[in-house]
């Protein structure tokens, strides 16, 4: 099975690109630590999306060229980044006022588990002594849309579940889940698969998901999208 997973689905950068595709012109978007950070590098040409980083900036740009790194200009993952023209710097309290106040159009975040109701667990693993909450709880309650961007399984164990067993970040907060295998909406009618990654069947996806999925991609060949 591990072998299969290596062969099919989106790579990390393809996954980031798939997320970026859904970010609309003019949106203000926060990118979490991990795969979400990659989204900054793959914003579609001609689309103005203003990226927020919770350590206190709007207008985050791509990674700097080697040798151009500035340790006073980092993202929420503490990696060197650049600032786009039109960007701005502000304090932590201002940054989280922006987040909690509902001013960001979307937050793209990682996850340990997500439930069929959109409950998110992303800050603490049961087998670790310490959690790392950072801004995750603020982002999930504050952003207008919460998009997850993650591997579909962790060491073969499904991350999409009926009920989270890990400590919650926030209940019923996730709107859409992007994984290496599929794009899945969290709705009042349950988890709706909108799109399958190349080489992924609905049956394969369901097999790797610990909650019931509904297929809205029926009639399309594998790898085609429902757009």
């Amino acid at each position, binding site marked *: 099975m591990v072998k299969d997973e290596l062969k099919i689905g989106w790579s990390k950068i393809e996954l980031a690109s798939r997320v970026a595709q859904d970010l609309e012109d003019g949106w203000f978007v926060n990118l979490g630590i991990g795969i979400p950070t990659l989204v900054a590098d793959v914003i579609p040409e001609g689309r103005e999306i203003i990226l927020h980083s919770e350590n206190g900036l*709007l207008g985050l740009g791509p990674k700097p060229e080697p040798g151009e790194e500035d340790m006073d200009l980092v993202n929420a993952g503490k990696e060197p980044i650049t600032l786009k023209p039109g960007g701005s710097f502000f304090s932590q309290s201002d940054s989280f006022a922006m987040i909690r106040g509902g001013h960001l159009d979307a937050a793209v975040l990682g996850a340990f588990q997500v439930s069929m109701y959109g409950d998110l667990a992303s800050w603490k693993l049961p087998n670790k002594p310490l959690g790392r909450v950072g801004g995750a709880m603020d982002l999930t309650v504050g952003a207008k849309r919460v998009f997850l961007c993650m591997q579909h399984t962790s060491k073969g164990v499904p991350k999409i579940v009926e009920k989270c067993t890990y400590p919650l970040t926030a209940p019923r907060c996730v709107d859409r889940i992007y994984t290496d295998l599929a794009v899945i909406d969290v709705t009042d009618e349950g988890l709706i698969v909108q799109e399958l990654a190349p080489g992924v069947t609905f049956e394969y996806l369901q097999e790797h998901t610990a909650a019931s999925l509904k297929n809205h991609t029926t009639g399309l060949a594998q790898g085609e999208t429902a757009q």
Partner: protein
Amino acid sequence: MIQKQFKNTAEAIADIHDGATLLVGGFGGSGLPSQLIAALVEQGAKNLTVVSNNIGAVSDGVAALISNNQVKKIICSFPVGPHADDLIARLQNGTIELEISPQGTLAERIRAGGAGVPAFYTPTAAHTELGEGKETRMFNGRLHVLEHAITGDYAFIKGHRADRWGNLVYNKTQRNFNPVMATAAKVTIAEVDEIVEVGDLDPENIATQSVYVHRLVKLQTEPEGRVVVNG
């Protein structure tokens, strides 16, 4: 491409509906978005709830909306001044409601509204007439009152320079309530002296970030221009 600039004040405020809550920046005439107010007088939306610090300090402020019978409720800290007569008359005949909030509490309530904080405790106004009827609680041996956030459907703010993204800088004490109110409305409309290229504003020096400004109007510098814009 992001484009927040409107052709004139009339278009920028055209959709304001009867019964809307409106936050109006400025401290007296300083930083007052008077051309947006003038356009709203023309537009005529009624039964507005208006949140603004000074009522009656200048004739082209919120007083103009009151005199034009567009306001059903005022929330402010300073309802007196040479142009407050129409407010007083309407209070006396019961056609307008007034809520006085201490200036710092008013500012903090609006900030809270923009920051996703629904309520907070403050020592200001405890043991006074303005604290009456409010929940109170002791913290550190001192009485505090619970104050609730204020948000608006629209905010009118005055800025000095803007860029296309909606970033704003202010000129001196023009700043006052403007950056606070900009955060607390569904639709924030800024009248500005100048619109510059994206990247022309110093990223360390942006007082209102692009995320908070939804519509921009460049002020007409000639008085004749103002008439055309609002006419």
